[in-house]
């Protein structure tokens, strides 16, 4: 769905106030989200209009870029992911939000993450509201068959992968479509203690070889190279995969499928290969610099970044909020929250490696890595070209 037919798509949340706010949001079509916004509208006395944006990541990014670049004033706040913030924050399209995420508030978020993703030249340009943690999910039936109940390290993981589960079922499943494979690639590099920005690093190369060999040895399916998360989730639910790495946001999908539980799909501790590190991503609000409703927008952002605002979002949408203190200490309505809390406490949460040309770089890296996986290029050729992609837009 496009963002351009705003009149048709706009969902208006009425209020008697003079202040008005237009939000372009990824969840604008979700009735729960509209109810949540309705409550905020009443609390803050702001008339809030919500317009949807395209589901497809490339289309979404192109449309939002065009709106910001053209100085459009019809949208005030936009919900964006890490990739988009990384691209926009240095371009001068966004309003700094240092008065919302003050130094005190910053401590309540994963600080390194916010500094890496939301900050540019000591200013903060986004307010995270929902956190996705890359987690390890296991199908208990596979664990039972291989008798590896607890995958703690590389040896356990290798044994789990090596067990013969039968035809057309795989010990590991991924979404390896060109724009999604980046998530697995960077996650394995984390776990192997490598550095995504350094393709000569031996640990980075070890992670790449490990993924390559998983495919070569038939531990994972070649067919997943055209799969995005929706296909991967379906296959995991259908019992075709023994384990996956997937963001915590998928919890609702697995839970609502009726397959989540101790005997079926469940969260598992992160195996320690070399480093107990996992990627996190957030959805965030950015404020359009050309907005004419900055005062209302900042009141809204102040609220959603407050403890009350975070709890309200989490309970309304059954998602993890972005504030660590709220995840750890507040009563929030997310299935298996205790396991998620263990990740937050025990695992290093790391921002994904992103550059100022994220979307293009991610896609190019994905295509290049697919070539390596299919043995169309060698490891050295892959690493050489991967370094070129990284160097093009990355400045530490």
């Amino acid at each position, binding site marked *: 769905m496009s963002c351009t037919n705003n009149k048709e798509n706009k969902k208006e949340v009425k209020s008697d106030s003079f202040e008005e706010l237009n939000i372009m949001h990824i969840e604008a079509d979700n009735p729960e989200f509209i109810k949540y916004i309705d409550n905020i509208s009443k609390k803050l006395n702001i008339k809030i209009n919500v317009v949807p944006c395209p589901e497809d990541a*490339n289309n979404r990014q192109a449309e939002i870029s065009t709106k910001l670049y053209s100085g459009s004033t019809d949208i005030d706040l936009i919900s964006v992911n890490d990739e988009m913030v990384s691209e926009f924050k240095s371009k001068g399209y966004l309003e700094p939000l240092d008065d919302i995420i003050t130094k005190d508030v910053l401590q309540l978020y994963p600080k390194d993450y916010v500094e890496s993703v939301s900050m540019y030249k000591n200013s903060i340009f986004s307010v995270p509201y929902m956190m996705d943690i890359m987690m390890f999910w296991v199908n208990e039936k596979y664990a039972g068959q291989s008798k590896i109940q607890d995958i703690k390290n590389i040896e356990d993981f290798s044994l789990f992968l090596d067990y013969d589960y039968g035809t057309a079922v795989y010990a590991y499943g991924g979404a390896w479509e060109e724009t999604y494979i980046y998530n697995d690639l960077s996650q394995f590099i984390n776990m192997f203690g490598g550095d995504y920005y350094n393709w000569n690093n031996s640990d980075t190369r070890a992670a790449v070889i490990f993924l390559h060999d998983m495919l070569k040895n038939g531990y994972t*399916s070649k*067919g997943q190279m055209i799969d995005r998360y929706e296909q991967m989730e379906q296959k995991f639910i259908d019992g075709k995969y023994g384990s996956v790495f997937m963001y915590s946001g998928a919890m609702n999908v697995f839970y609502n499928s009726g397959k989540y539980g101790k005997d079926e799909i469940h969260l598992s501790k992160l195996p320690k290969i070399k480093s107990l590190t996992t990627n996190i991503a957030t959805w965030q609000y950015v404020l359009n610099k050309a907005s004419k409703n900055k005062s209302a927008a900042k009141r809204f952002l102040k609220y959603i970044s407050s403890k009350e605002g975070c709890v309200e979002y989490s309970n309304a949408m059954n998602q993890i909020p972005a504030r660590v203190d709220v995840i750890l200490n507040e009563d929030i309505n997310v299935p298996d929250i205790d396991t998620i809390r263990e990740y937050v406490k025990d695992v290093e949460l790391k921002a994904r490696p992103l550059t100022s040309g994220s979307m293009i770089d991610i896609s190019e890296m994905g295509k290049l890595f*697919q070539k390596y996986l299919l043995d169309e290029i060698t490891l050295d050729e892959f690493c050489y070209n991967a370094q070129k992609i990284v160097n093009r837009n990355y400045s530490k």
Partner: protein
Amino acid sequence: MNTNNKIKKYIPVILIIPIVVIRGFTTIYPIVITFINSLYNIKVLSGIHEFIGFKNYIDVFKDDKIISSIKFTVIFVVVSMLFHVLLGTVLALILNMKFRGRRFLRTIVLIPWAMPAVVIGMAAKWGFNNDYGLINDLIRRFVPDFQFNWLINTGSARGAVISMDLWKDLPFFAILILSGLQFISEDVYEAAKVDGANSVQIFFKITLPLIIKNILTLCIPFTLWRLTSFDLVYAMTSGGPGEDTSLIAYRIAMESFTNLNIGYASTLAIMLFVLMALFSWVNIRFMNKYND
């Protein structure tokens, strides 16, 4: 010449001015602007907007992605058009035969053509899926252990895209040939039969010469549509694996609307426009020669 005649002479000119203005604004203006943009390096995401002359035109021939797109576009157009002509003619001949249910068949055969290419692409993506697709499901009824990922390997992915293109547009091509076949009088066929001609001779000596102009005329728009086709690939393979099914029109759309690399996309669009104009000109010349 009196005043009345002078006014009459200008009336047609005045009457066509609105359409010329509208046409100029909707066709010529975008072409001119696209050409001007092609001389600039315009990258919206980086905020770059600088004049670079014909550098984009030179860069096109150094770009591996474009070379790969051109290769597949040539394969796609040639193979697809070849099968359009061959199978389209066969289908038209079948639809021209007298049998029960002919009208019904003529109607339902057009259903794929009436479906949007994006919908077909999305359905085909699932259709060719190894685990859930109906293609492999059908094959597994005969070969139970069959496993194949159609859209992962270059050859099969390209074949799948071309087959879906044929599935969609071939019936329309056939129906248009059928309209030509219906103009051929039954008397001609009867006279040939009386003279002792067999079916093959009738086809090559009577039917084909009488519909060849139809086929050549149809080849112009159908080839141009293949050259500008992007939606099927967009929904079905996203140009993958790698860039192996990335048609040139798909590449233009990606450069333009995803990468927001407007200057480069304009260059590709202008080059495609020139190619299409050239193709149409050659085809029309060929047809005129054939008429002579």
